[in-house]
């Protein structure tokens, strides 16, 4: 990195006391790790020529003046700089400890809310059917606001509040075109990234997304959530029929003799994740057989079925 070396004159005999009485070095080295040296050199040269510090009204002695209005410390010289740093440190510490204090108080109040919600949940559990659905929904939305897990179902998702219903409808609108562009199916992680990148602010949490998607089918929206055996979650267009896609996958594999998930993905223009799921589904339906070796997982048409 760039360096500027500043050579110092020997100390004058009437030098004021400072942090150090003497040093074995006669220079200081300034290192610039991320640029700035040009501008700095210019200003340094200027100041060394002008020597404005020799004409400062506070003069030779190091004084610490308290500005009564601002309550700040005005200081000159290295000791002054040190004092300012120390004050900044103290203030930062004070900020942090104040923040912690305030945080603790806040948490106490939050804890009360958690206790109250547990009590309500117990009542709901005991009196199944005596609490109106409206009140249950209200309760769930309170839990959502506080970030408290639903004490009855023990899930933090699957909460089904009005918010999630609205979100589900929004998603149906947003995802229609992207889904069509991608062959009718997208993984939930793809959806998460797509939606949040589009939003920029007020992003969805992963749980918000899952909760909303769980309501798609019951709200009769043109999309649905599907969970494969592997646990992979996807959103499909209602019009999309994965089982039909399996038939065309079988054709593709037959044409090539055999395919791995990677190869199939490249051929068809799908993500490897979804390609694998399709091939696995085809296998589950009996159309494909696997050859599982260290070279990878390869799928063949199931000749046992077709040629028996």
């Amino acid at each position, binding site marked *: 990195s760039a360096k500027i070396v500043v050579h110092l004159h020997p100390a004058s005999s009437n030098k004021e006391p400072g942090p150090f009485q003497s040093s074995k070095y006669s220079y200081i080295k300034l290192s610039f790790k991320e640029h700035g040296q040009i501008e700095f050199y210019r200003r340094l040269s200027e100041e060394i020529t002008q020597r404005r510090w020799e004409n400062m009204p506070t003069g030779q002695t190091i004084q610490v003046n308290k500005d009564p209005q601002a309550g700040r410390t005005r200081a000159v010289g290295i000791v002054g700089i040190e004092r300012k740093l120390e004050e900044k440190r103290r203030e930062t510490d004070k900020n942090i400890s*104040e923040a912690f204090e305030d945080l603790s108080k806040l948490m106490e109040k939050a804890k009360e809310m958690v206790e109250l919600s547990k009590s309500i949940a117990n009542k709901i559990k*005991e009196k199944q059917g005596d*609490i109106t659905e409206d009140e249950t929904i*209200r309760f769930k939305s*309170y839990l959502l606001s506080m970030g408290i897990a639903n004490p009855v179902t023990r899930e933090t998702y699957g909460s089904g509040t009005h918010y999630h219903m609205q979100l589900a409808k929004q998603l149906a609108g947003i995802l229609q075109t992207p889904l069509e562009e991608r062959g009718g199916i997208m993984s939930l992680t793809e959806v998460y990234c797509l939606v949040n990148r589009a939003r920029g602010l007020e992003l969805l949490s992963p749980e918000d997304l*899952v909760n909303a998607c769980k309501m798609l089918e019951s709200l009769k929206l043109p999309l649905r959530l599907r969970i494969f055996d592997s646990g992979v*979650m996807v959103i499909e267009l209602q019009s999309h029929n994965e089982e039909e896609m399996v038939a065309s996958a079988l054709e593709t594999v037959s044409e090539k003799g055999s395919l791995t998930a990677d190869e199939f993905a490249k051929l068809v223009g799908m*993500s490897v994740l979804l390609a694998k799921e399709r091939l696995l589904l085809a296998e589950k339906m009996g159309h494909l057989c696997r050859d599982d070796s260290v070279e990878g997982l390869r799928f063949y048409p199931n000749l046992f079925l077709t040629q028996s």
Partner: protein
Amino acid sequence: LLQAKYKERGTVLAEDQLAQMSKQLDMFKTNLEEFASKHKQEIRKNPEFRVQFQDMCATIGVDPLASGKGFWSEMLGVGDFYYELGVQIIEVCLALKHRNGGLITLEELHQQVLKGRGKFAQDVSQDDLLRAIKKLKVLGNGFGIIPVGGTYLIQSVPAELNMDHTVVLQLAEKKGYVTVSEIRSSLKWETERAKQVLEHLLKEGMAWLDMQAAGEPQYWLPALFTELYSQEITPEEAKEAIP
């Protein structure tokens, strides 16, 4: 009649409590707003404070990241910070998946995420990454956190990794590779068991086989190649990351 009366009482009590909760919620919202106006910056700028905040929430049974619609997220802005981080984590993992089979060390993930965020973005700690990843699990993509030798391996594919696989990964962490003999001597396993585990890792693309090593074949884990760490994500890889 007595039964009915008791039942009625019970319902009334629950309704009362709901009304009480609603009031307390409004008050809490005000308290939180006040807290946010004074300390929102602290959360944004100070990773240690974020850790404290999260730990305190966990202690009392509150998840500030459960929903973007929650008070915490809306008023403190913690939500957006972690959900955006989630997107960045997914992108890095997707881009590098073909290199490492879906396993990456927390260090490398951290480096790549920081690079992607740029010089002027808010600082992100490893703890922040772990919290974001824990939230991503719910998306069903196989996100997982595997402790190895003092740090963590982050899994981002739905491959099944059981205790046997994990233990071998931990063994491999020291040198970046492992052999059947090492597994046999350290873990006291039969050859067959060791081979099964290694073959599974090979199939998943998480391990590479070096048959030309002196002595016996070595099974290397790309996720643990420290030399590859600062390798840039190529444009082709970046394209793979954005579906």
